[in-house]
Each structure stands twice: as structure tokens, then as C-alpha cells.
């Protein structure tokens, strides 16, 4: 900084703006804080709650949701929404199970499933972009389409007996002490890491944020807005099919009715994780925290034992509302400054 500009007023202003800049992290930090608080309460209430494995089980039980939430984060950051993810998960599971039954090599099958997910997402993205249709409507159509395709493959549940899949379902990767995770956790965390890198270290990722901040501005700035908007749905599609594979590891079957409403869990996790539904603000790590919060609610209910599992839904609903209100307050503050 030059000597000329070193006056007290601008310095104060910059310190102020730095503080306000931190407000960007507030919703995400609130989620992490909430998770820690819930974990502490659980530890105080139930013996055996405070263990590393309880935490790791949260990851193990929610690998597919983590991956879904990552893809959803990309879409929501641009200000869009993808309602098709639950159905694409089911479709991926059906394709996986039926191809394995037909004797396909698991690796070739997984490649095909990922390709299907990507194509499905990209097609929806193209429709949204080219015909300027609301993402809500297009992905709703995608939801019905993918779900319908499941029934075309098979109305009945298909069991997976493939040795690779059964071994993945049972495999435990030991950590320190008696702690362990499943291979799915490694994959899910890898997806999170890659997503984090893409969002923060590539022009594509920054364009995702720019579109959420102002689509017309991003266009006037000469950014690749149309391409990016199509690609985020492709990414969400890929994430859905990865989630489908992970779900197959977990359930060892394919069933047309599987993963119904999972898209809503993914959206809830992203929103609870601090990503603004209007786009532009949010972090993929926040979405991970969001999944963990939803997971720990479930753990609570199961530890309580007397409560019906419906309470999970009620608590998630209340949490969602609380976080939307928090975001509203946050955006109002941003606009005032």
C-alpha cells in the first residue's frame, strides 16, 4: 500500500469488510457447531454414544447421501435445483443389479452406470439452458422419467450376489484402535475432496459461484455461463450414479422403489449445511456437515428407542426451517451493508 492511502479511515473500512467477509462462513460454522453440540448432548445422555465408531458409523450409513449432497451443492450454488437425484440413484441401482445378474464385469458395469448418470444430468442441463425452463420443472420430469425406467428394467427387487459387491459390503478398513470405516466412506470423502478442489481451484468452480451471485453479471463478465450451467447438472447426475453404486454396496439389491424422497434429504442436507437456495453462497464441506447433522438426528432417535422413527422427519423439518430462517437473517444483513 502506498503512503498516500495509509489513512485511518480506509483501514477501518477494510477491517470492517474483512469481518463482514467472515459472515460468509457463519451458516456453515453454525452447522458444525450444531453437530458438535448434538454430539455432546448425546454423549451426556447415553452411555456409549461418545465413541469414535458412533461418529464413523454416521459416515458409513450415509455415504450415498454425502455424494448426493455434493452434486446437489454444485446445482444449488448456481441457483438451480435437481429433484431427479433420488430416482437416478434407484435407476443406477437397477441397472447395476440387472447387469450383474446378466453376468457383466463389475468394473464395466460401474463405468456404464456413471455414464448413464452423466448423460441423464447433462440432458436435463441442456433442456434447462437451451429452452430456458425452470430447473424445478425439468428435473421433476427427470424424477418421473428415471423412476419409470426402473420399472421398465424390473418390477421386482433384484438381489446382488456378485462377489465384488458382497466383499465391498462387508469390507472394513481398520483405523487406529478398533475403529473402522467402509470402502464407501473412502469413496464418498474422495468425492468431497475432488468437489472442494474443483469449486475453489478451477475457473469452472469460480464460475459456479459467479452464476449464483448474478447470472447476468457473470454473462457480461464474459464467463462461460451456459456451459457451466449444463455441466453442474451433469456433475449432479454423476454423483447420483456414484451414490447409486454406494447404495448397492450397502443394500446388495436393486429395487424400483428404493431411494424415494432421497432428493429431499439431499436438499435438506445442503441447506442445513449453509448453502443458500438462491445460490452463490455455500461450501461442499458444509453439505458434509449437513449430512452428519441429519445422520446424528437419526442416531439420537435410535438411541432413544421409545420414539418412533417418524420423529426423525419432524426434527429434520424443524432444523430445516430454523436454517432457512437463519439464512434469511444472514442475507438481509448482507444486503444492508
Amino acid at each position, binding site marked *: *500500500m*502506498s503512503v*498516500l*492511502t*495509509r*489513512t485511518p479511515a*480506509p*483501514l477501518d*473500512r*477494510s477491517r*470492517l*469488510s*474483512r469481518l*463482514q*467477509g467472515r459472515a*460468509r462462513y457463519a451458516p456453515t460454522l453454525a452447522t458444525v457447531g450444531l453437530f458438535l453440540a448434538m454430539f455432546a448432548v448425546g454423549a451426556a445422555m447415553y452411555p456409549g454414544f461418545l465413541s469414535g465408531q458412533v461418529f464413523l458409523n454416521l459416515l458409513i450409513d450415509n455415504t450415498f447421501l454425502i455424494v448426493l449432497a455434493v452434486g446437489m451443492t454444485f446445482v444449488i450454488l448456481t441457483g438451480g435445483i435437481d429433484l431427479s437425484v433420488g430416482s437416478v440413484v434407484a435407476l443406477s441401482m437397477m441397472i447395476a443389479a440387472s447387469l450383474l445378474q446378466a453376468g457383466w464385469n463389475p468394473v464395466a458395469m460401474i463405468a456404464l452406470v456413471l455414464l448413464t448418470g452423466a448423460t441423464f444430468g447433462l440432458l436435463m442441463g441442456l433442456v434447462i439452458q437451451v429452452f430456458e425452463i425452470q430447473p424445478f420443472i425439468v428435473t421433476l420430469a427427470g424424477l418421473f422419467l428415471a423412476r419409470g425406467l426402473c420399472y421398465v428394467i424390473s418390477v421386482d427387487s433384484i438381489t446382488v450376489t456378485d462377489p465384488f459387491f458382497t466383499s465391498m459390503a462387508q469390507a472394513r478398513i481398520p483405523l487406529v484402535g478398533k475403529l473402522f470405516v467402509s470402502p464407501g466412506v473412502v469413496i464418498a470423502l474422495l468425492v468431497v475432496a475432488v468437489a472442494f*478442489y474443483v469449486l*475453489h*481451484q*478451477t*475457473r469452472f468452480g*469460480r*464460475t459456479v*459461484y*459467479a452464476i*449464483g*451471485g*448474478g447470472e*447476468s*453479471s*457473470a454473462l*457480461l*463478465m*464474459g*464467463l*462461460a455461463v451456459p456451459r457451466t450451467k449444463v455441466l453442474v447438472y451433469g456433475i449432479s447426475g454423476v454423483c447420483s450414479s456414484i451414490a447409486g453404486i454406494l447404495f448397492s454396496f450397502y443394500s446388495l439389491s436393486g429395487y424400483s422403489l428404493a431411494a424415494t424422497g432421497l432428493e429431499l434429504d439431499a436438499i435438506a442436507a445442503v441447506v442445513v449445511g449453509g448453502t443458500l437456495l438462491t445460490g*452463490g*453462497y455455500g461450501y461442499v464441506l458444509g453439505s458434509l456437515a449437513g449430512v452428519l447433522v441429519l445422520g446424528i438426528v437419526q442416531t439420537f432417535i435410535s438411541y432413544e428407542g421409545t420414539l418412533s422413527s417418524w420423529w426423525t422427519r419432524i426434527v429434520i423439518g424443524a432444523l430445516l426451517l430454523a436454517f432457512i430462517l437463519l439464512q434469511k437473517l444472514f442475507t438481509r444483513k*448482507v*444486503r444492508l*451493508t
Partner: protein
Amino acid sequence: MTETVPVVDMQGISIAFPGVKALDGVDFRLFPGEVHALLGENGAGKSTLIKALTGVYAVDDGTITVMGTRQSFATPAAAQAAGISTVYQEVNLCPNLSVEENILLGREPRRRGGIHWRNVRRRAEEVLEQLQLGHIDPRSVLSSHSIAIQQLVAIARAMQVDARVLILDEPTSSLDADEVQQLFSVIRTLRDRGVAILFVSHFLEQVYEVSDRMTVLRNGRLVGEYLTPDLPRMGLISKMIGKELDALAELEEAESRRHPDRTQEVPFLRAEGLGRKGSVRDVTVTVHAGEILGLAGLLGSGRTETARLLFGADRADQGQLSIGGTARTLRTPRSAIDRGIAFSSENRKEEGLIGDLSVRDNLILALQAGKGWWRRVPRTTQDELAERFIRALDIRPSNKDSLIRDLSGGNQQKVLLARWLITDPKLLILDEPTRGIDIGAKTQIQKLISSLAADGMSVVFISAELEEVLRLSDHIAILKDRQMVADIPNDGVTMEDVMTVIAGTNA
């Protein structure tokens, strides 16, 4: 100033839109190291000219030469590539990202493994430093800064591409005096570095402060190009507003309408020090029954804002308002309508008429809204009213079923007027009722306004055309820089008198 080779040379530019000739053979030049102000009232063609230069509109006729090469820009990106950068009135940046990112977005320096954030910061700091904006923290979030700073960041972004031409479209409209000075020092820095700057502003004081050269447009035509010191303020204003056509002379008969007596009765509407933060202030006006109050002032002086306050479209946070002698607070347009106030917006298309509905449907809208939707106006009454007003206002085509969007601007305006007249208002606020319509329709509407007032209706009349305001009004409230500066009875007031108030430096 020595005449060098212009960076941009536009010759004989014409652009026509359906029904309007937006630009008609306009010449325009930009010289390196000069601030060139483009001036004209609303609809003069300023923004069309800018859009022609930045590749938003295609040119129908004429040539654009940039740095010696003939150009026809198909997209804004093509114009940017040729070194023409534009900073728009509304900041077109991403408020959710940091300052450094906004400066370099899409051009971030990269290394193996992604964006080189340290170089991003360094480059951003360099650009800010060059513009003497080193005090802006490049890491701070854009939305944490004032609009002024955001505007400067937008300029920094424009400079990052090494622009030879910088277009600033109304950059000062939301800045305060200190911020304007900061912007001007940046403009001067760039000018001294040889950048050609096109500056559009409706604040004449700023134009005189910062510009070296001026081009004045009126009704899509070039009035002239002048060196700033050669054209005094009064001369500029009369060139911008222009002399009216003789066709309006026939209105003189309406002039004989006597000014209503102000002293006796309670005024219909009285505002005292009415204002709203960020809008206008110090609005003190009185409107009696049968009186026409004219609002005069340049574009952006707060004419429309005043109308919106009086109608409750914006809620006032300063001053008092009384209607019929009782103090009132207008919270919504609804409460204004209930007190007999009607407002015809200046945006016929966006805030007034519904293009896909028929003349009859549009006419009936306000009446129906007033009655509530569950008490439908009978079809026969609708037809009767529509026919009566089509005849009374000479709306053409005289078919109550034709769609509004097929009518000419003048006839659309008449429909809008008729819509409010049907509700029989006590006070009619007309914002630019004669803008963009042909001279014949203009005269008809002016006559109608005076005859309405003669019948006892109060009118608040807003127009960019000063002569029109002078001809019709009993009282003239003059606005300047979003503040009401004078209220004068119209007894032989001349254009010069009003211009002196508008041009006066001591507000």
C-alpha cells in the same frame, strides 16, 4: 485541446426500432486522453448510441471505426476484445465473491493444479494501486462495500483488460459527493494515461467538472459536439430540451383557463417536507381542486420519486401529508386510491397496460379493482364505458376489442388516462403522459388535462418537456438532484426562469 486522431469514430449512425427511429444519422467521436460527455434528455438516444458502440444493438446505417479499423460488433464480448469496456449504472459484478475475484474472474492466473491465488491477489492489488485504490482490501467480499467502491472495482476490472475506451453509463447516480470525487480522481488518472472515456450523466455540474468535450443528442438526432468550456450551462440546457414545435401553439386557447383561487378553500392535498431516504426530500407542495401542479426538473432530479411518494407507492419517512385537510400517511397505493388519488405511470408498458388484453379490459381494470374482484362490472356497463371513453378521448382504432399492444403509444396513453378517469379521481398524477407519442396525440392529451382541471379535478403533471409544464401548470415545483428547490406560481414564468433555478449552483 489539439485535435488528434479519434479512437472511436462513429459516422451517420442510424438505428430504428419498430415504429421509432432511435438514432438518425448521428456522428460521434472519442479522443484518447479525453473525457467526453454524452448528453440529452430521456429518449434522446444516448443509451442506444452506447449500445451500438458496445455491440448490444446492430447498426442499421453508418460506420463505426475503432483505432483505424472498420468494426461491426456482434456481441459485447467482441467490443470488449477491441478494447471497449463498459461500466453500467447497476454494478454488474458478483456481490458474493471477493474484490480480487471480481477483478479477475474468468482471467485468473493459473498454475499446474489450479488457480494461482497468490498471483490473483497480486494482480488485483496492482490494478487497484494503479487506480489509487490501494486501500481496498482485495480479499474483502464485494457486497461489504458501498456502491461507490463496487463501481470502482468494476472500473478496475475494465482496466484489467487494458481498455482503450471506457464507457461509464450513469456511474454517479447512486453516489454521494465524496464518492463522486473519488470516482472523478480515478477517471482523471485514466484520462491522463490516454484512455478515451465516454461519460454519461444527468448531473450537469458533474459533466462540467470532469468532461473535456460534450455531444448533445435530442430525439435521436445530433444537436452538436462542443468543447466543454465553449458551451455554458444555459446554452446546454436549451440545446438538450430544445424548442417546441409550432403545432402546440394551438393550445394557447386552453391557456385562458383562470388559475383557481388558492386562498379560500382547504387544499385537496398538502405535503410538507415530504421525503424518503435515498429517494427525494423537501417536497412541499399544495394542490387545490381544479389546479394543475407541474413538476419540473431534469431527468433523475426526483420527478417520478415525488409522484410515487404522493401516491403511496413508496412510503415517505420524512414530513407530513394531508388530504382534504386531514393528516394522512399513505402506506400503500391502495390507501391513495381510496382517497381519490390516481397515478398514471411513466412506464406504460411495465407498470400500466397489459398488452395482451383488449382496450375494454384495460380500461375497466382500475374500476374493477376498486370494486373488488367478486363484484364484477357487468359486461354491458363495460361496453358502455369503453365506447364512451373511446369517443371522448378519440382512441384509435375505435374498437374496444382490439389488443392494447397493437395501439400506437399515444393511443395507449389515452387508454391509460381513461382507465383512471373512469374511477372519477379527485387527484390525477400523470408521470410523463406525453413521452414518446406523436405531436397530435400530445396536443389532444394536453387539452384533455386542462379541461379536466377546468372541471375541478386536481392534477400533478410531470414532463421532461419544460414548455409543456409551463403551458399547463398553475404552479410549478422545481426539483434538482432529488430535492425540491422551489415552488413558483406560474404567472408569466419563462423557460429561462426555470432553467436558472435548475442550473443554479447554490441549491
